[in-house]
């Protein structure tokens, strides 16, 4: 048998319910794995070992038939858990202990999960590599000289390294899907509005969404079942029915129409990534899907649009870190100086850069030229997807233009770093669901991901295609050696 820490949610649940393993054995295997490899991977800001054992005690009197009973999960450290330090990997929140619980973790709690730790991210989820973390950089378990991607790099690396059974991340411009691709695991961004953001520390409110990072598509469906659904505490969460995704994903995909946008197969796309995605399309054709070329004509404007909208919203959202109510405060005798010093010392370079850009875009005289303009282009990008979905059911693209890059390779050039998100950003702008699934490895042994994008609130079809593809391939069975 596989080591227990390598198990996914589905397999672990089966072994637990048949009594072949106990909750203690599973938790101990995961915590032991963390002890063994965390020095190399550095996925966690906080490991919650004591809380996890306490939680197992609690669970003894709980319903053991819930879908996440005794399953050890890791949560990205920008999601508030009552009484557990939540830092956003920022010095400004280094000692912040939320007095309330996010809706997502409340729902996971109700279904029996066990928290093993809070995972590292780029500070306030701003980045694609975890190199912007205010604390340390997480390593890619497949090659520790490489980044794990970001911003949910800690969650993706923890899943790939077997330091948890599954994890939760957040995705504003690709922050779940890109690290999932880089780390050879499954990562899904649900439709905007599908999952409540109550308790998620806000970055760009018109784009942020919470989703699962897992070892299989089925596991993603299990987590999505639990975390989805309307929540009165998040007025942007949608009152839309949630199907049982673990059932719908089993349907066959014969006759499904897949669109391949020609604008995604461009210069700068790594050859091995291109080949792997084309190979994936062949597999899907063999499964009965119809593949056709489509056009998303405004693709080339997505990154520029995103960096206006996301930074503008961030500059407004992050105004709350003023040293008054919570978080770090730089002592000063004068109020204005206290604000300025608190923010100067508390925020890292990338966060400051984005606050500056967003403040500029929203400042008097520039609003129409930048923010409004970007909102208009966002309409064009969304229309591209609406048009495409009249002809196809799912859009298939590479998740990233290249496999994981080396630590330090892109830090000096923010624009190059931003362009790395070119294939994931449009989906956040358009709002629909998308998943990244392992579809191959580079000659250097780094994972490659394929992205399936669906219509608004059609997670069912996205998961169905991903599940059928996964069952026809072996990529998801490989494990990183550490």
């Amino acid at each position, binding site marked *: 048998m596989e080591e227990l820490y390598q198990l996914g949610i589905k397999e672990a649940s089966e072994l637990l319910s048949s009594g072949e393993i106990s909750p203690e054995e599973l938790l101990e295997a995961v915590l032991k794995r963390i002890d063994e490899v965390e020095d190399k991977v550095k996925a966690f800001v906080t490991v919650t070992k004591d809380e996890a054992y306490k939680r197992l005690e609690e669970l003894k009197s709980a319903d053991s038939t819930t879908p996440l009973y005794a399953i050890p999960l890791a949560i990205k450290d920008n999601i508030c858990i009552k009484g557990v330090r939540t830092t956003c990997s920022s010095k400004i929140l280094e000692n912040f202990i939320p007095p309330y619980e996010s809706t997502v973790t409340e729902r996971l709690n109700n279904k029996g999960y066990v928290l093993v730790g809070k995972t590292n991210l780029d500070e306030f989820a701003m980045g694609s590599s975890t190199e912007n973390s205010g604390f340390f950089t997480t390593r890619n378990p497949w090659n520790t000289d490489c980044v794990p991607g970001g911003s949910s790099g800690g969650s993706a690396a923890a899943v790939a390294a077997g330091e948890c059974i599954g994890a939760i991340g957040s995705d504003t411009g690709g922050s779940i899907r890109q690290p999932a691709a880089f780390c050879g695991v499954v990562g899904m961004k649900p439709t905007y509005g599908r999952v409540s953001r109550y308790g998620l520390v806000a970055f760009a409110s018109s784009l942020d969404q919470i989703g699962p990072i897992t070892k299989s598509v089925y596991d993603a469906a299990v987590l999505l079942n639990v975390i989805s659904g309307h929540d009165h505490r998040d007025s942007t969460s949608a009152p839309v029915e949630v199907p049982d995704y673990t059932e719908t994903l089993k349907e066959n995909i014969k006759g499904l129409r897949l669109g391949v946008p020609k604008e995604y197969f461009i210069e700068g796309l790594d050859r091995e990534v291109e080949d792997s995605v084309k190979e994936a399309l062949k597999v899907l054709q063999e499964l009965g899907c119809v593949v056709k070329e489509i056009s998303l004509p405004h693709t080339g404007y997505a990154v520029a649009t995103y960096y206006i909208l996301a930074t503008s919203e961030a*500059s407004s959202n992050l105004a709350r870190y003023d040293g008054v109510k*919570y978080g770090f*405060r730089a002592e000063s005798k004068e109020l204005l100086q206290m604000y300025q010093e608190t923010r100067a010392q508390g925020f890292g370079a990338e966060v400051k850069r984005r606050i500056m850009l967003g403040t500029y875009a929203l400042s008097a005289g520039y609003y129409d030229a930048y923010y409004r303009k970007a909102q208009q282009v966002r309409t064009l990008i969304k229309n591209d997807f609406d048009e495409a979905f009249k002809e196809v059911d799912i859009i298939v693209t590479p998740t990233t233009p290249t496999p994981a890059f080396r630590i330090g390779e892109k830090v000096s050039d923010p624009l190059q770093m931003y362009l790395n998100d070119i294939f994931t950003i449009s989906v956040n702008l358009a709002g629909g669901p998308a998943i990244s699934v392992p579809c191959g490895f580079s000659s250097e042994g780094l994972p490659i991901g394929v992205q399936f994008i669906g219509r608004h609130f059609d997670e069912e079809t996205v998961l169905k295609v991903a599940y059928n593809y996964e069952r026809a391939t072996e990529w998801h069975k490989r494990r990183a050696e550490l």
Partner: protein
Amino acid sequence: MKLSSSEVEHIAHLARLRLTEEEKELYSSQLSKILDYIEKLNELDTTEVDPTSHVIPLKNVFREDVLGESLPVDEALSNAPQREDSFYKVPKIID
């Protein structure tokens, strides 16, 4: 588009950030480069296009105006850098 050092200072003031001289220089060149890239949005004629502020068709979300639970004062103040009684304490604002 080149951002001048005084523009960078103005933005930093609006954002309540104190920047070092090195940061001012760095951000002036990096932000100028990013703004140059963003210029490409002007290739598109958007005069007839409605802006999208929200991607799903949700309008005003109302609820009944009834009293709910709220955070107890001590918990709300539990992360305060400085407090006095049931208040956040800050440096003097008015002389």
